[in-house]
């Protein structure tokens, strides 16, 4: 009897605890509110320890690097004179210093170059949930970081801030399966939605099959998502496949190429123009006009006119400049008769124009 009571008691406690957590979960999902205070407590406890351990690690790694460099130098000392060895050590030390400073310098250069206001941050820990690509950085709301801010590296976009605590923030990386951002292709200006997949490759969704995207083409942020400023590099197309309604576009991201230690959080984003697309200079061959048409054109015979041509003619008669019309140089370059070659980018010839 005692055993039975004990079993029911255990079950009752289990059901109560599970029900309480389900209610907690339901509240968050239903109200779309986060229990920030609870998370702040955990992050507040973990972040300083993580920062301390990270500091210790960086110091220890630096010490051992120097130690091994020194050991190597001692071996060389047996063969070389003291002065040369000393110089080599110095050289080695400076090289190490330079390599460690490289990332910081790249960030600094990017910070100067970009019109957006940014703040540098260091990754201090990973998040706990399975299969997620979320990290903690050592900048928090005290430094002005807010949820929804874009996170980038000098190479490209890296993620977005999803929670900001006093001394740390949570950043969802672009590779996370729930990540999404608006993107646009460089060459054909095709808009799409970038999505993470939980691993290194990203996909661009919602690109209709009839639009053109090429392998090797670069994608940039479009600014549509109100998180990333327009014009930041995203990645390069590796695979394009035709799907049912939409293309399947796989992208190798640029932003995480240089590892994941230092990041930049964009505090105030400024949209940038997209780089000029490399337009293909396709030449078209125009066949000569039929003899009767060429003769009538030379004789100034009346040809079919559109409403636009009539308005244009009125402008000319009045002596006013025609809106949108090119200068005389452009007109003289236009072929009249004979086989000619024109650039595809030029305006088409208007029938009846003299």
């Amino acid at each position: 009897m005692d055993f039975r009571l004990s079993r029911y008691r255990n079950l009752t406690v289990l059901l109560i605890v599970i029900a309480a957590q389900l209610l907690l979960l339901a509240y968050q999902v239903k109200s779309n509110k986060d229990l920030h205070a609870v998370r702040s407590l955990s992050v507040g406890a973990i972040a300083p320890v993580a920062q301390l351990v990270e500091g210790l690690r960086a110091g220890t790694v630096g010490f051992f690097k120097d130690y091994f460099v020194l050991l190597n130098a001692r071996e060389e000392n047996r063969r070389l004179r003291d002065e040369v060895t000393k110089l080599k050590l110095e050289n080695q030390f400076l090289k190490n210093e330079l390599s460690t400073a490289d990332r910081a310098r790249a960030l600094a250069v990017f910070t100067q170059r970009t019109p957006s206001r940014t703040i540098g941050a260091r990754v201090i820990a990973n998040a706990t949930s399975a299969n997620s690509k979320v990290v903690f950085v050592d900048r928090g709301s005290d430094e002005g970081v807010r949820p929804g801010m874009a996170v980038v590296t000098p190479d490209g976009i890296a993620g977005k801030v999803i929670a900001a605590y006093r001394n740390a923030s949570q950043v969802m990386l672009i590779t996370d399966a729930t990540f999404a951002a608006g993107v646009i292709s460089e060459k054909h200006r095709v808009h799409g939605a970038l999505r993470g997949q939980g691993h290194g490759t990203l996909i661009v969704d919602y690109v209709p099959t009839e639009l053109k995207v090429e392998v090797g083409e670069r994608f940039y942020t479009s600014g549509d998502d109100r998180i990333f400023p327009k014009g930041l590099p995203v990645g390069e197309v590796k695979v394009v496949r035709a799907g049912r309604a939409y293309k399947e576009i796989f992208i190798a991201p640029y932003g995480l190429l240089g590892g994941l230690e230092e990041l930049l959080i964009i505090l105030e984003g400024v949209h940038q123009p997209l780089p000029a697309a490399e337009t293909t200079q396709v030449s078209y061959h125009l066949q000569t006009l039929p003899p009767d048409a060429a003769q009538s054109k030379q004789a100034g015979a009346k040809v079919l006119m559109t409403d636009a041509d009539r308005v244009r003619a009125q402008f000319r008669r009045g002596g006013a400049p025609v809106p949108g019309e090119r200068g005389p140089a452009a007109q003289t370059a236009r072929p009249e008769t004979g086989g000619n070659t024109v650039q595809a980018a030029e305006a088409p010839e208007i029938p009846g124009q003299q």
Partner: protein
Amino acid sequence: MNEFSERLIQVPRKGSAFSFGPVALIVVPLVAILYQVYVSKFFEFLAFLDLPLLVTVYFSIMQRSPVAGLFTGGLIGLVQDSLSHQPLGILGIVKTLVGYFAASASLRFDISNPAVRFILGFFFFVFHHFLYWILVQALLGQDAAFAVGRVLLMALLNAVVAIPFFTLLDKLRVRG
């Protein structure tokens, strides 16, 4: 039933539960969580090791109290939730159930036997990940893949690590 199976499955004697000092009960789970958030950042190959889960299983089976087990698991899970981007409660529920069932199982098995520890470590790893996958899909509506082969391999590795890890944690126990 031979002697070996009798040794594995035995009705526990009264007073065979172990208790732990408050420092061990607080510090060990915190270190396990810190390991998960920090060490995996530098050594990605060590990310397979789910120390918070092993700690939950260990404390649950050693205390041999389903109520203590479910609270231990629930608290560790909630702290993990608060450090993730998921809503609070997913890992809490999963680890509550892990703690409860691990403690219940410990009432039937000789938990000091390494083979039992290996089997429990393996089973609860698979159970944990399967339940997590179910809850994420059912409650959050997220599309998540359950890679059976990968989970089984990771469960095996965790079970292997569980044997020396539990032996190490045995040093912290105080007979109740």
